[in-house]
């Protein structure tokens, strides 16, 4: 029992975080909002091997467990990455491996192409226009179809850094995709929440009213302390969910949704009118948080699973069950 990242894992996550934060600056994001082309960092991610985190070594991957991908997803959320990197590296790649689509897999890992998912729990394909192929998920796995076989219709997200499309084809739920999707979306939500708290802290230190920084008022302090607490008590259940699956996955996604909604509401309150505008960058992270709350299973989807598990099921609950049954 050592419920921490190993040093190597930590280094890998830090490396990803360094490139996310270093490259996807606020300036870059503002530029994309103003019309600059997105997904420009794709090749760079590939060069760093970031698409191969979950791929096997024979496919030039790093064979890391999902929990490492969760650590990287948290960093991607924190950075507000517009590229749909997390879904591709965290879901598309392991699905392609499972489907033995070696050729596509190589191209994805090398950053040559991007692939989209057509799947019920994530009904809008982000950056669908840039996809070379799509995986139509099915219970047993799925099948790959070329871009030309799919008609995409745009959908309009409040997040100016999401480019959504609806496909004319339909997939079925797939266990791997759904589990990875929920865990990694939860991790991104925690990263977003951390960023919103950080921005609020900075704003509250700078902004003065009544002759002192607003961050010195208990009302501001206590609200931010509450969000911080929720974040710190959501990350571990996400890690557990990544390692163990099962009910922890639903717990993790719901906890992350609630934390992110609270973080966003608190952050805008601390920012005052400023947070309600494009004058500060908070809105980019807040909107991403709203979008991801509904992606890969909304609160109701996951809560219904827990209704079955906790209230109606014969599950063993109580002390000693949380880590039980693990290898």
């Amino acid at each position, binding site marked *: 029992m050592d419920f921490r990242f190993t040093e190597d894992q930590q280094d890998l996550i830090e490396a990803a975080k360094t490139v996310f934060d270093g490259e996807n600056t606020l300036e870059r994001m503002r530029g994309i909002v103003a019309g600059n082309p997105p997904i420009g960092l794709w090749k760079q991610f590939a060069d760093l091997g970031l698409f191969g985190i979950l791929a096997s070594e024979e496919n030039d991957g790093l064979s890391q467990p999902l929990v490492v991908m969760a650590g990287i997803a948290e960093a991607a959320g924190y950075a507000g990455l517009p590229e749909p990197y997390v879904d591709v590296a965290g879901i598309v790649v392991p699905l392609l491996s499972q489907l033995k689509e070696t050729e596509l897999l190589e191209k994805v890992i090398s950053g040559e192409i991007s692939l989209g998912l057509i799947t019920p729990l994530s009904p809008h394909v982000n950056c669908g226009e840039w996809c070379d192929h799509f995986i139509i998920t099915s219970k047993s796995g799925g099948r790959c179809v070329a871009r030309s076989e799919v008609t995409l219709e745009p959908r309009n997200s409040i997040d100016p850094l999401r480019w959504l499309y609806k496909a004319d084809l339909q997939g079925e739920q797939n266990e791997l995709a759904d589990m990875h999707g929920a865990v990694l979306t939860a991790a991104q939500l925690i990263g977003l929440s951390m960023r919103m708290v950080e921005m609020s802290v900075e704003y509250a230190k700078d902004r003065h009213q009544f002759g002192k920084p607003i961050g010195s*008022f208990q009302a501001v302090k206590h609200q931010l302390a509450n969000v911080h607490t929720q974040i710190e008590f959501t990350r571990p259940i996400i890690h557990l969910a990544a390692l163990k699956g099962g009910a922890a996955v639903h717990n993790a996604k719901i906890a992350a949704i609630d934390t992110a909604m609270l973080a966003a509401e608190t952050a805008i309150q601390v920012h005052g009118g400023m947070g309600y505008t494009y004058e500060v960058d908070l809105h980019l992270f807040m909107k991403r948080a709203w979008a991801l709350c509904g992606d890969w299973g909304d609160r109701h989807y996951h809560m219904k699973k827990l209704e079955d598990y906790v209230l109606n099921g014969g599950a063993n609950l109580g002390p000693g069950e949380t880590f039980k049954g693990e290898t």
Partner: protein
Amino acid sequence: MDISYTSEQKTFRAEVRDWLAVHAPKSRLPSFDTAEGFELHREWEHTLATDKWGNVNWPVEYGGRGLDLVSWLIFEEEYYRADAPLRVSQNGIFLLAPTIMEYGTQAQKARFLPPMASGEEIWAQAWSEPGAGSDMAAIRTKAVKDGDHYVITGQKTWSSRAVFADWCFALVRTEAGSERHKGLSKILVPLDSPGLTRRPIAQLDGDPGFAELFFDEVRVPAENLLGPEHGGWGVAMATAGFERGLLLRSPARFQAAAARLVKLYQQHKDRLSGGVGEQVIHAWMNTERFCAATYQLVSRVQAGASISSESSANKLFWSDLDRHMHRTAMSIMGAQAELEDGLDAIDNGRWLDGYMFSLAGPIYAGTNEIQRNILAERVLGLPRK
């Protein structure tokens, strides 16, 4: 206690309903924070005014019907029931007009109220400054008397509607060297005055809902002073009372939203987990509580009471209920919640829009933190320091 409507009030309700059934736009107008939407909303104000529906509680001479506040509540109920457009004139008719009626000269009433009622002149509020938000007494924009004019220099921000509006009511420092609450005055300023520059501010949905206003020696006739010179704080507090207390947010708006939330819930019910029903009920309960409290407040006001610190409780309650209600809607919509408009956007993004607006509720008209301070200190009697 008597909670029955008079037969006049019942007839009035029927009249409002009938008129709105004929005249209210059949589909939602574009947002009044766009140039096109602003003008369409202005036209709607004109339509309302033509048949004297814009301000039923105003005196007849200024374009109203001279009715009591209960009739105004009835009007609001029918108005939101008909899903009629939001009032682009709201800063004027709900915030400035009561102040003009209380503090204005006869000439000011005659000059400003009728075009406000007709939508010919639309008003923005110019109080906050970059350094004076929650701490409004920190206002630095100054107005210097020069003969029969004031010359205004400084900067205002968070001025809603100011991008397209015609006039603003500004709170400025008229007494040189004065500090905090003293030496302030309320002055009415045409937004096309020479020396006045507006910088639009994009709000969450990207539309320019606010402006920053830069005053560079803007000359305004001295007769545009509203209320006593250097006594602007008192005048402003009266406005803040109206804003937080009663006029700006009548219960009907929230009750209409709660009824729509119930429908949204019913449409999505099968997909939803067990807890959300109670959240929907809770939203409805809150709007009913707000309505009952408002009728009780109106009864007191009609009997001569004035609204004071209790308006802070009012503001806390409606802003919390509004945010909770829209948060519930966001949760119900799931993956569709992020859709701003267009295909698959439920109600064409109205709930998302409403959620974003509800997030501003605890901020504008005095942050909720300030309201809680006011309640704790002035109503409960807790020590300031």
